[in-house]
């Protein structure tokens, strides 16, 4: 880090750290507002795809006009939840993806064949999830996220043996996840089973930088707290940038819709991670140490 930048960062961490909380708090409010309004509109915090609510996903390796196909299918099945997207590989349309609930897979397939011609069995991938399994999976995915948070909290607490710093680290990760969920909603995406995996992946990824920060600040004694924090930033940012570049490359290089969704969630989660680790977690840690100092002085007197 350039010397000028470094000293102003140290200055911020040492003297104006409370101001650092403004941005993450705004971001947190933004995430909550997006998720809340989505909940009010749809009754769900995040829109579930057919693999989580039951239904059929049909990926066809046969290019078709998606607008035409969609209106044709809507005319045929007026009361179903339907989504038609193009399937693209490296920016080229190679086929279509049709997602639908409340219609039998075979009926849907023959309706599509009516429009685009009979398909060879090798030309399509059909994924049908019964509503009971979809619901069960979603319920358990939420349980998995909760259990993951509990386990991570235990690991972090076992490491630092301090309640508040452990809580700040875990809460930062939680906030990263909320932001990724909010962006997911804003982009109108639908959660698949792979998306659930991505949120858990995000927990693992974003706790790294928080553990790094907390360790350097609490377990070291060299320099001032601000100096220790500022000197951790290059390490943490390199870690996050390395992860982000992987995510970006994977997003554009993969042909898999599943991997694309995973990368999308990770991307926004990692962006949030930069903010929540280096402003939110850092500022709260600074505040915590300040209070501890004051208490110490108070007890000393």
């Amino acid at each position, binding site marked *: 880090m350039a010397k000028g930048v470094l000293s102003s960062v140290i200055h911020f961490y040492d003297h104006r750290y409370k101001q650092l909380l403004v941005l993450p708090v705004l971001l947190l409010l933004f995430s909550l507002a997006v998720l809340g309004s989505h909940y009010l509109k749809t009754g769900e915090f995040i829109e579930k795809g057919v693999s989580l609510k039951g239904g059929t996903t049909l990926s066809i390796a046969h290019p078709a006009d998606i607008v035409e196909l969609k209106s044709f299918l809507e005319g045929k099945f007026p009361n179903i939840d339907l989504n038609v997207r193009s399937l693209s*590989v490296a920016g080229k349309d190679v086929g279509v993806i049709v997602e639908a609930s409340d219609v039998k897979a075979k009926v849907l397939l023959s309706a599509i064949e009516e429009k685009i011609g009979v398909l060879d069995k090798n030309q399509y991938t059909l994924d049908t999830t019964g509503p009971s399994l979809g619901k069960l999976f979603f319920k358990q995915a939420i349980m998995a996220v909760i259990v993951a948070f509990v386990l991570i909290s235990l690991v972090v607490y076992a490491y630092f043996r301090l309640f508040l710093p452990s809580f700040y680290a875990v809460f930062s990760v939680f906030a990263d996840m909320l932001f990724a969920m909010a962006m997911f909603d804003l982009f109108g995406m639908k959660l698949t089973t792979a998306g659930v995996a991505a949120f858990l992946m995000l927990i693992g990824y974003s706790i790294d930088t928080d553990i790094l920060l907390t360790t350097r600040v609490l377990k070291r004694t060299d320099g001032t707290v601000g100096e220790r924090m500022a000197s951790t930033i290059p390490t943490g940012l390199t870690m996050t940038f390395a992860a982000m570049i992987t995510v970006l490359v994977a997003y554009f290089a993969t042909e898999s819709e599943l991997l694309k969704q995973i990368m999308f969630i990770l991307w926004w989660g990692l962006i949030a991670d930069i903010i929540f680790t280096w402003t939110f977690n850092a500022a709260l840690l600074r505040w915590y140490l300040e209070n501890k100092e004051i208490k110490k002085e108070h007890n000393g007197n």
Partner: protein
Amino acid sequence: MEIKKLILKFRVIMLGIFLLLSLLAINPHPFNEGASIRSVDFNSSASLAGIVTPKPTSTPISKEIVIAVNGVEIKTVEDYFVEIEKLTIDEPVSIKTTKGVYNLISKERNGKLDLGLKVVEAPKTNIRKGLDLQGGTRIILQPQEAISDDDLEILLLNMNERLNVFGLSDVSVKPTNDLEGNKFIVVEVAGGNEQEVIDLLSKQGKFEAKIGNTSVFKGGQDITYVCRSADCAGLSPYRASQQNLETEWASTFQFSIALSPSAAQRMADATKPLQVVGQYLSQPISLYLDDQLVDQLQIGSDLRGRVVSDISISGPGLGRTKPESQLTALSNMKRLQTILITGSLPVKLDIVKIDTISPVLGKNFVSSTIRMMLLAILAVSIVIFIRYRNPAIAIPIMITSLSEVVIILGVAALIGWNIDIASIAGILVAVGTGVDDQIVITDESSSHRNKETSWIKKMKNAFFIIFAAYFAGVASMIPLMFAGAGLLKGFALTSIIGITIGVFITRPAFAAVAEQLHKEE
């Protein structure tokens, strides 16, 4: 950097050994050609000639590969089918494989020439591709009521026996459960005969014969023998195929079975009170499968009150044409025979998920994934290079990341784990956290920081963070191993294996590199 000193370090040697073992497990054969035998159908030309289905545990590379048909070299699966197309029925065929030469007589099965071999492109490594990369069908079944572990075991044994009796070998049936203790059965079919498998496995197979309301015999213990040979099983000689509608034909199958003495006695008791109406008795015998009527047979008047143990079972097959209806009848017969031999499943099953995956869509996925991984590692190396401006750091990070991928794939090949899309995501996680850890090691060991701190102390600091991140990473993946019928188990397991390999094998080796750099500084 003094490479010689570095490669003599224990931790680097360990990495080398693991890399070597992984390569041995992966066993790359980049120039493998031919059509690899995935399975051999029961009673087919190929099985009669002595070709056997590879064991499910055998590694992909060890499987027998067809390299010539009638002296014509086979390089791909297409070549194989081109040669098979040229054959005519009842003709001698010579099949040369990597294990020997077999002489077959081509036979007709299900209306077309079929040697009974299911083949796939010859594998180039021992890495098994998951269903979403090679195409196939995955069916998840859930028992309709809670069942005990013992019943589940009986269920699985019965399902596997049905597959064996039916002659399907490339089907995997595995139990799985979820966080709430619900039990599921995951059936994976690599070939294209998923409808047969669904019909065969999802049916409870409760077979019952009734006269009026009296049950006379049931599938399982009441039936001591089921005939499957051509002289007592096939299309019915008494009921010819007939056209019901303009586009519907019906044919009838028939096969004989032997009843146990007690079932034969029950049959005699049930026919005794019936009246003789012409040639037949006043009530037919009705055959039910899973409570649905399959067929009704008139009972000859001479059978009234007699204890007969050999009786004939029949049922229909429908189709748009006469041959199609005959084929359906024969396939229905085969299924019913299988169910009668193996008995019914202890519970009814619901199909909760069916995925049919096109092999075409996954075809280019493997090469694009390899490209994606290499590009990602390259991009990360660029970020590292920009940060440290030192190829002596960026290159080892790149090599460590690549070694991690190789070792994960090696472990997968060794334990027979299928690499599917979710596992690829898992590998990316492992490599990603690996890079994070290497950055921590590099920064902690940097001589610009804490000049007075000893090397060991610096590494302690680095590994303190690395282990905290490792435990947190594993903690976040454990619940996923058990969530929702194990749909994301592949992802969770690969991530856990990957980050574990990273922490215990590749990270210490990278620390050795960092130590060497540190000394040279």
